[in-house]
């Protein structure tokens, strides 16, 4: 009996007759079309991710929060933190760019996938860093409220009156808790959205990479 796979191989060679044939002109038109590869998407999305948090500072509400920080005597602290933040952000961007440049379709499949995952990982670490910083800012604010003597400055900066019918102790406590809870929800919300999108983008690639890894076990 002829081996089934030999039969298959033979038939496969015959398939050429049925394949589409593109003309020189048709192929020529294609080479200047825009790529929609995963690497291209990673680049676009990553640039957006690097930019977006910085655009948030332009919102009017950012000015209000700055006023709140000032009222709590945190402005120097925040400036210092911002400088550190930018140094780290530039490190992440440089690392991302370096890894992005190393991606080459000429590598073997496994190396190519590993490089894409690594490139994407530098953005992932950047996001984790940004989220931690965001949460840390909330925690610091809560701490500043905890050590501040007079909450009226805080209320002034938000253009509201200090409620008179609540004891200062209670007011302080509820303030600290609201800041912490708000901080946690906000960070979790942004993180949730981010990791959902991130997971979608690389799902297929990761599955294939794991499959290749498993072959080697």
């Amino acid at each position: 009996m002829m081996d089934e796979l030999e039969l298959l191989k033979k038939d496969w060679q015959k398939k050429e007759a049925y394949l589409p044939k593109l003309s020189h002109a048709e192929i020529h038109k294609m080479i200047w079309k825009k790529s929609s590869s995963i690497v291209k998407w990673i680049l676009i999305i990553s640039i957006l991710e690097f930019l977006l948090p910085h655009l948030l500072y332009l919102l009017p509400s950012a000015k209000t929060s700055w006023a709140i920080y000032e009222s709590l005597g945190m402005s120097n602290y925040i400036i210092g933190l911002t400088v550190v933040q930018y140094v780290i952000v530039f490190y992440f961007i440089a690392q991302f760019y370096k890894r992005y440049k190393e991606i080459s379709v000429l590598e073997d499949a496994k190396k190519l996938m590993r490089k894409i995952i690594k490139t994407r990982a530098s953005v992932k670490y950047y996001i984790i860093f940004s989220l931690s910083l965001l949460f840390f800012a909330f925690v610091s604010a809560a701490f500043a409220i905890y050590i501040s003597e007079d909450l009226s400055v805080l209320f002034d900066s938000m253009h509201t009156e200090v409620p008179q019918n609540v004891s200062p102790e209670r007011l302080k406590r509820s303030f600290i808790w609201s800041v912490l809870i708000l901080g946690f929800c906000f960070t979790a919300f942004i993180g949730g959205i981010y990791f959902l999108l991130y997971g979608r983008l690389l799902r297929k690639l990761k599955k294939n990479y794991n499959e290749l890894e498993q072959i080697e076990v």
Partner: protein
Amino acid sequence: MNKELENRFVTELENNQNIVHKVCTLYTNDRDSHNDLFQEITIQLWKAYPKFRGDSKFSTWMYRVALNTAITMYRKSKKRVQTQDYESVIFKIKADEYDEAEEQQLKLMYNAIKQLGDIDKALVFLYLEDKDYSEISETLGITEVNARVKMNRIKNKLRTILNP
């Protein structure tokens, strides 16, 4: 980039386009996706072409870029509805060349191959293209021994489908 390079590339691709079409046939299920993937592979080939030194055959080089694009870089667009009237090339089997049993076997095997994962498909594709294990291992980045083991498993899987 100059016109001469452009022309040389398009001519080489035109002469070897079968390789790309075959990859597209395995990895897509309708005509639009086929064309989509073909275009993406063409773009990737063209982008990498300046690095093609000619020390390997153009076709050998194409296998790697085409498979890498299909497995790694290509994102299927979800919007596509599978067109009903489209019959994939691989199911076009000339009835007069085979007896009924053989024809049935081929259909079953092609069906099974279509259901395989992306990596298994790549292995089967290279096997059907008569590539040896050293080339398969180099293309996918796995060791030759493991490529052989994996291929045998896939072959057995296909055989059990035929002889349950």
